[in-house]
């Protein structure tokens, strides 16, 4: 994480975090060993992967089709495991 570490003089009062949802800047995709790969032709838009992705790394598009956001995906494999049509496959990240 390339956060600029602030001095005590710059911190908000009362130790709060005043930017809601600012973890959005944090890349957790680096945790990944396996990479989910989606075959959109097999997707039936059931949204199971979107619901179960612990990392909010499945983006739900307007028509309920989905897109994988590798910036956040930690590679747990739940999406591939739960996909009823095997539209998502886990592949080695290094390959």
């Amino acid at each position, binding site marked *: 994480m390339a956060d600029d570490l602030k001095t*005590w003089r710059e*911190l908000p*009062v*009362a*130790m709060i975090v005043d930017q809601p949802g600012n973890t959005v800047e944090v890349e957790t995709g680096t945790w990944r060993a396996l990479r989910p790969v989606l075959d959109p032709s097999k997707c039936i838009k059931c949204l199971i992967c979107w619901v179960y992705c612990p990392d909010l790394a499945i983006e739900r598009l307007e028509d309920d089709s989905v897109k994988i956001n590798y910036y956040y995906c930690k590679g747990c494999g739940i999406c591939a495991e739960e996909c009823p049509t095997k539209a998502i496959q886990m592949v080695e990240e290094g390959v």
Partner: protein
Amino acid sequence: MEVKVERQIRTGLNGDEAVAYAAYHADVDVIAAYPITPQTIIVERLSEFVHDGLLDAEFIPVESEHSALSAVVGAAASGVRTFTATASQGLALMYEILYIASSLRLPIVMALADRALSALINIHCSHDDAYAARDSGWIEFFAENVQEAYDLVIAAFRVAEDKNISFPAIVNLDGFILSHSIEPLYIYEGQDVVREFLPRREPIVKLDPDKPVTIGALALQNYYIELKRAQAEAFEATPPYIRKILREYSEFSGRKYDFIKKYMIDDADIGFLVLGSTAGTMRHVVRKWREKGRKVGLISLTLYRPFPVDDLRDAVKGLKKLVIMDRSYSFGSPYAQLYMDVAATLYDEPEKPDLINVIYGLGGRDFNEYTAEEMWEKINRPGVKKIWVGVRGD
């Protein structure tokens, strides 16, 4: 003392009732408290005010002191005026949350009916509990009498909620000696009067669905010390604001309040320093001793945290000896708690009095003129540094 009696009523209340009236007149919004002697009358009276419809507040009759302080933390974080009260073991159970309330800058006001900590279990006055809170980032006041208990609770709300301060505050009143003793005092005619001194709280931070913030996150090695540095700076910056508010309150009430009180100290050779109700007894004693030709004087602290360093340095000038009276004991420390504050305060002074530490009054042991005389005899022995008085065997 000259008292401005406009819109004030002279009445007789015990210390707990006075505190309850103060919270009522301060129009407190949320109270969470658990019964513990000698604080119980406070929560009983406040419950009555709420149940009789006099005070529009939520009274949360929690299942423990830990939850009492936790609940007021939640309420204070929501932006309203909050109050709790406890003593001794109850404060000990709250201990974890004391630090949290201060770190989150929540202006909770707590009355502490000072009582000795177990074991053995005792319900009477020591300052163990007041001292236990001393490092936690709470402002601490000590009341000498019932009038001060009432006034300081009202002033404490203004102090705690001031935007330049925003720290929680404790008002200490000696268990039983003040909490259960009836004395005359002036109270305001009601909430409308107090509101002129104490407007509605404007929080510096709150849980607001329209402006979400995260309160109480996890801070590790990379941030914790910066956060504490900022908190320390904010706490150390409070004294001028506290003083200003106490002056305003003096004006408002007609009763003078400052960080410390001095009595016959200016030309004294030997000074006595006390907290709480013993200030009254010692004032009486000093008066009598002066009649006997003893050049003695008295200092008592109204503000204990932040410690009134400058005031104290100034007040002890010219003293040959300063007797620091602790109603508690600090096991394993070189001296008891108040002494150590004073010693640190005076260490860098070029000229300072000899210091003597007196331990007295634990668990409600009466401190009276005879005990005072025993103390006089002991402090005048050569080489005395730390003594106990009013204890069999010494």
